[in-house]
């Protein structure tokens, strides 16, 4: 990291500039507002949490539960600095979200067919 005051190259973890003593960490833009959460800089691994909640609570699909578990795993691995592990968990979270989408459309189709047959059946009665 280069000191914004005198331009000296410092270690990335340095708190103050070795040349002029300027505080370096305060000068860097805060990546995260949350204190106590350490995330490797420049990494953002999708956890699909929104879609997992959408599937579980808004579409009544229990397949969203494993997606939520994997979403937690993504963020847990990121907190531990394990980016590869987070990406693996992210893939699983995505898979369970896609399973939910598949089940949703399959269920919708079955329900639509049943409704159609119901209407046809009631027409046949008349």
């Amino acid at each position, binding site marked *: 990291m280069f000191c914004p005051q005198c331009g000296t190259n410092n270690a990335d973890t340095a708190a103050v500039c070795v040349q002029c003593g300027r505080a370096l960490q305060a000068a860097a833009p805060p990546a995260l507002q949350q204190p106590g959460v350490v995330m490797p800089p420049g990494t953002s691994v999708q956890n699909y949490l929104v879609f997992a909640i959408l599937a579980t609570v*808004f579409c009544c699909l229990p397949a969203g539960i494993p997606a939520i578990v994997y979403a*937690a795993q993504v963020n847990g691995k990121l907190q531990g600095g394990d980016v590869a592990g987070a990406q693996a968990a992210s893939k699983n979270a995505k898979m369970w979200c896609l399973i939910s989408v598949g089940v949703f459309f399959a269920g919708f189709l079955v329900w639509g067919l049943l409704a159609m047959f119901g209407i046809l059946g009631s027409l046949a009665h008349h």
Partner: protein
Amino acid sequence: MLQARGRWLAMIILGAGVVAAFMLRFFDPATSGVFPPCPVRYLTGWYCPGCGSLRAMHQLLHGNLRAAWAMNPLTVTLLPFVMYGLASHALFEIRGRELPRTFLPAVWIRALCAIIVLFGIARNLPLHPLNLLAPGAMLHP
């Protein structure tokens, strides 16, 4: 190419969401057969954590917060966050930018998962304060 696909997908989903909102505004899932029943309830007879969410959103679209809360308090609580997250995802696909967001520690997500599962169990139990969590039970105690 991939980005254009994501953008179209986001637009289609947004459009479907608007249509669904209008349908929910005009048809009450409690009385009309327009909406499919909860598959869990249909197959097992148990309430799932999401049971009553369509009825809750119908009530919300009519401004009845109390009735919506009675149908599914979890849906009403989570709705603002989910809407924000969806808006952020859509904005990212369409504009390439996200809304500001905070990193949720894994413990919070696990806690949320536990709340959802426990809520799903609690609303099926025939014990007095817990059975109020069943869809609509709070309206007729």
